Structure formats: structure tokens, C-alpha cells
């Protein structure tokens, strides 16, 4: 065939062919581009670690004597078997150092005394009954079982006890509509350690993360 035009110009037929083939090229290029999609921004986000599940746990801070009884925790309950070591009918003697701090015997070394301002509530028998160590005694002369300890706390902390009874101090859980399900009011000792009741500090859960990775620390300029 002879598409070469005699006067040095492309013939219409060749022009059409060229245009068509370039269109094919453009179209296939476009198709590839659309499929590969290099504009897609899929890595805008940086990884955020999932929060530790301990922060999601609604369990109370401490376990109370009632919890030990309910779960039949023999190991923990053995700590409440006072007369396994103490002699029946003989009140234990308390010893104090020169600063009037209670000397805690080795057998009770897990106890940290810190009740009251400057640890002034430092007599075991302010709360425990010296004649029957399995009981607690209030200042107004009532004897209580360990399960009833909130009444003991209430004998000194009246307003707080009132709030607790109304369900306003402390942790309640379960159903706000008591007709639909159970509602539990935790006793004082589920949050407060009776020997050192101040609420302990704790590690906070992580704060909010930014949408984009925070810029790394600015480079310190060299000092010359």
C-alpha cells in the first residue's frame, strides 16, 4: 500500500488511524489509572492502640468479707479465723512506739494503719471487739458482724452513711428501675480499706488521640 501522500502531507486515512490508535492508548491509560487509583488516600490514619481491658472492668476496687463468704474463698477467709492464733477470752495487748504509733505485729504485716488525720485512729479496739475478735464494736456499744461493717463506719461518719443509705455515696450498680432487675449497693469496704480508707490514686486511662500522628519532637538547633 502507499499511504504516503505525494505532496509530503499525511493522507486523511492515516490521520484517522493515528487519532484512533492514540485514543486507544489514552483510554487504556485512563482505565489503568482508574483501577489502580493512585489518588486514593488509604494511609491517612496512624495506628491507635486499643485501650487495655482493665480500664473497662466495672469490678469494685476491693473485695469485702461478704464477697469472700459468697465466693467461698477459703484462703481469704482463713484471715478472719482469729482464734486459730489468738487465745480465746484473752484480749490481745497493743504496743506503741515513742511517737504513739501502733506497732503492728508480724502476723498482721499486711495491715497499713492510716485511718484518720495523722493516723490518730490507731487503736484496733476502736472498731474491733477485744473480747470477741470475730465481731466489730461501735462507739455506742453495738456489736456487729463483719458483713454489717457499714453500720460501724456510719457510727462515726454519719452524713456519709446517710448518703450511702440513700444510694448517693459510693457505687451502685445494676438496674435503676428496681422492678426490672437487681440493684446492688456496695458496702464501704468494697472501695475503702478500713485500716487506711483514703481513696488510692490510680493510673489514668489514655487520653484522646489526635486524628493525625502528632509531629515528632522539634529538632533542636545545633549550637555553634
Amino acid at each position, binding site marked *: *500500500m502507499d499511504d504516503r501522500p505525494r505532496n509530503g502531507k499525511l493522507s486523511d486515512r492515516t490521520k484517522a488511524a493515528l487519532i484512533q490508535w492514540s485514543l486507544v492508548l489514552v483510554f487504556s491509560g485512563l482505565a489503568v489509572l482508574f483501577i489502580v487509583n493512585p489518588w486514593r488516600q488509604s494511609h491517612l490514619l496512624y495506628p491507635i492502640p486499643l*485501650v487495655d481491658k482493665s480500664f473497662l472492668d466495672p469490678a469494685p476496687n476491693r473485695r469485702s468479707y461478704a464477697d469472700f463468704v459468697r465466693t467461698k474463698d477459703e484462703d481469704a477467709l482463713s484471715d478472719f479465723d482469729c482464734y486459730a492464733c489468738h487465745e480465746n477470752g484473752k484480749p490481745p495487748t497493743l504496743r506503741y512506739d515513742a511517737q504513739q504509733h501502733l506497732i503492728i505485729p508480724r502476723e498482721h504485716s499486711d495491715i497499713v494503719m492510716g485511718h484518720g488525720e495523722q493516723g490518730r485512729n490507731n487503736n484496733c479496739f476502736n472498731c474491733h471487739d477485744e473480747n470477741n475478735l470475730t465481731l466489730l464494736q461501735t462507739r455506742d456499744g453495738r456489736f456487729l458482724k463483719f458483713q454489717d461493717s457499714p453500720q460501724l463506719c456510719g457510727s462515726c461518719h454519719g452524713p456519709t452513711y446517710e448518703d450511702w443509705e440513700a444510694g448517693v*455515696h459510693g457505687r451502685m450498680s445494676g438496674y435503676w428501675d428496681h422492678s426490672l432487675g437487681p440493684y446492688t449497693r456496695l458496702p464501704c469496704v468494697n472501695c475503702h480499706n478500713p485500716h487506711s480508707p483514703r481513696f488510692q490514686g490510680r493510673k489514668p486511662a489514655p487520653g484522646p488521640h489526635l486524628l493525625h500522628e502528632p509531629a515528632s519532637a522539634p529538632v533542636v538547633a545545633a549550637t555553634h
Partner: protein
Amino acid sequence: MPLPDASLHPDETPAAAGMSRRSFLRTSAVLTTGLAALASSLRPLLELDDYTTVQRFMQKYYKEMTPADMAKVLKRIEDEVQKQYGIRPHVRDLKPMDGVQFVYCLNLTRCIGCRKCVHACVAENNQSRNPEIQYIRVLRMPHGSLDLDKADHDYAPPTVPEKGYFYMPVQCQQCKNPPCVKVCPVHATWQETDGITVIDYDWCIGCRYCEAACPYWARRFNFTKPEIPKDRLNPEMAYLGNRPRRQGVMEKCHFCIQRSRAGRMPACHDVCPAGARKFGNVLDPNSEVSYILRNKRVFIQLKEELGTSPRFFYYFDV
């Protein structure tokens, strides 16, 4: 009709429309690649399913749906969640209870700023983990004033509470006079009779007017497709509550509608280690919240000068 000059183009057989075999191939190549380019340019339509489905598009307005319509919708949502997460959820449409108005009370004396409420809320309500969406922001402020300008929500000390600071968690205040509801152009958010302001995620158009109107910065927008790990999905869901949202819709705290309307306390309430949060029915004179409003120093509704009348009360002990 004169035949084409065969001597000029000996390799091309004459075609009916004057088209040679070669030019026919060329034309079809142009057409095929053109169509391919067109088709691939429409590829994003394949992902339209994430945005809307015919069923969702044809869905009626929440308040106009009959129970039969709602049952169909709930089944569709369960199917969608199962397809995406491989877990069959239990989606309910819980209605407000008669004689109930919810109120939240938060004791600023007790809050220790541990942020457990923030994360319990995320876990309960299936918020996106990346980017993070959180309904509760815990503000740390120095003792002695309540100046939101001095508030910091990025605090990260080794332990809380810190000396000289108090903490104030802020979430949707469930206003009695909610500005967010007034600005919604499509009525996708409204206040229910129990006081909870809800959002229909299928009706929301994502204009974010409500986010701009909220003085408490309580509304969150899904800028990207929410990401929830399968093992952290909470399958107990409600239509107006914690069912998974999609990209382009607003969300916010709804007092854990899936729990509160079933009689339970919200997740943030149950997880609080300090017992700082109290929730209940204010119309019941024996409820804890009624006791607090009667007996405690309930000193603020946050930004009460705006007249939004929140159902969220901050108070102090003593």
C-alpha cells in the same frame, strides 16, 4: 454504484458501509478501551453499598414507621452487621417508658479523672477506635475556679487524682431546650419523652449543623469509615443507640439507650470506681437523682446562662 478503487488498497476488502477490516478493528479497539475506561471510572460505585443501600434509601422516617416496617429495618441492620463483623447482633427499637425522665448527676468532689467512663462508653456504644470517637471528655481544671479556658483534656500524669486539680467529665447534656435539634434541617435528631435527644443514623445527612450548634462540644462526626475490632463489638444494640454508624453521620451520647430503656444504668455509671456518677428517673421522688437535687449542693448546669437547661447536673458533696 461504483466499486471502490481496488488498485489503491489491495489489502482491504470492501465492506458494506465502506469500512475496511483494518479500520473496523481500529474502531472496535477505540470503543472497547473507551468503554473499559468508562467502566473503571465508575468503579467507586461498587463501594456505594457502604454508603447506602436501596433498602436504606427507601426507608421511611422513624416516626412514620409501623412496627412491621421497623421489624424489617431491624432485620436489615442485623444482616448488615453480621455481614461486616461476622457476629449476629440483637438490635432492638426501645421506646421511652411512661413516667420516666432521665437525669444524670455527677459529683465533682468524687471524680478522680481516671477516664474509665470514657473507655467503657466506647466499648458499650461501638464507637470507632480509629479515628477515635469518644462521647465523654474529662476536663482537668485547677482548684478554685471553674474556668473552661484553663481546662485540659490531654493530661497524662502517672496517677490521678493530682493535687490542686479537679476533674469534670463532659458529655451530651441532654438539654431540655436543645440547640442541636433546632438546627437539624432534616429532623434526623429530636428529643424523646424521657428526655434523651436521639439521632436516626439512617436519616442524618451529615451536614454537621448540630455539631456547630452544640455549646458543649458533645456531638461527633464520622469523617471516615468507623473501625471497630470484631472482638470488641457489643452485640446488644438499639436502633437509636449503639448500632454501628457509617461514614458521614453524626453521633453522640444517648444515655446508653439500649441499657437505660431496659432499666439498667449507663455503662459510664457502672464503671466509675469512685461512685461519682448517679443516674435515674427524676420523676420518681425516691430515686437517687431526686435525693441529690433535693439535698446536695447542685451548683451548676454547665453554661446554664445559654438557656439550654441540661438534664446533666454537676454537684459537690457537703
